[in-house]
């Protein structure tokens, strides 16, 4: 019989949107979703990004779990813009008092 041990680790997700597909390029938009419940963020609540780039966040301990894809533009849609295309998703596991 396997014992189920409740973990006290919780995931934090940081979305960084960069100016280009390079993880070294500058952050232009950002979002934080905190599974530990420490931070409750809202639209328009900060003027400066938490990190200047993905690489800077990596150096602070964040792990990259998704990099920006680069699909070729659809014919006829080469100049159209839509969602922010250079999205990187990072995670960090933090200790909590839950468990």
């Amino acid at each position: 019989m396997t014992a189920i041990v409740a973990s006290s680790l919780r995931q934090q997700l940081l979305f960084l949107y960069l100016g280009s597909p390079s993880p070294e390029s500058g952050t232009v938009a950002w979002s934080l979703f905190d599974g530990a419940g420490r931070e409750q963020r809202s639209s328009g609540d900060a003027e400066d990004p938490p990190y200047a780039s993905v690489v800077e966040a990596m150096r602070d301990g964040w792990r990259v779990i998704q990099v920006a894809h680069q699909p070729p533009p659809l014919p006829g849609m080469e100049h159209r813009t839509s969602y922010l295309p250079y999205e990187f998703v990072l995670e960090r596991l933090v200790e909590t008092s839950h468990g």
Partner: protein
Amino acid sequence: MDDRLLDASQMAAFVADGFLRFDALVPEELNLAVLDEIRRKALDGVHFNQGGHDIGSFFPRAPTYQRVLGLPRVRAIIASLVGPDPEIDHSALHVVGPRTPHGQHWHADATIDPRTEAFDIQLFYYPHDTPREMGGTMFLPGSHFRRVHESTIGRYQNFRGQVPAVCPAGTLIAAHHGIWHCGQANHTDRTRSMIKLRLNPTVRQRQLFDLSGCDAPEIGGILSRTQPWHGADGRLEILQRLRLWRSLTGSDYDVDRWLTRLEREPTVMAEVARERAVHAMA
């Protein structure tokens, strides 16, 4: 009586940023009277134009707000953007109660809009002072060409270059329908109110504004200025602006040959071109 149409610089700024802001445009006595209409619930809720009403007949219970829309300068701004006789799409009173800790998610009204030359405008009217702690509306300049569906941009929280509408009473913001925006938290003890009105064009949006400054050198600079959040996509935004500017002015305007080079796809053979050149010199 100020009934000036938008000038070329203002129109270029609208094309580049997706909105224009007019601080304290509405006189204080009208602002106070509109606030009274709001208190009396004469403007409550969302009202769609089912009966083909024009601006002069859509607000029978709110005559002061109707007067605001009839101010000569307001009429001129509307006429410059969507023509002198637009259709009302709908009106919506936005009220955020005291101590509301969270804002709306970012969104664009109302769904994916594939139009390239025509556009609606939305008039955001702030009848009282709106300091930052009261929230106001957050706008994202240069977002209006992005094809997105309403709240599907709600994953984004903050952008470099986002602009809160911190404004004095009587401020009017005229925005392209595609602008990304969100109501902000209200940390004060007062209720915040804003009236939004969407207008559809009924004529082709061509040469509706004051065209006298269209050849001024600053127009190219306005149309070329990108936003801090655009990153590498800024050049794609410039292409879309130039196409709209050409449509609005009825010209073949270009900046730094952005569109011109894309249109250069010659079909004439080199020999034929040489012969034509010889004939032309003869």
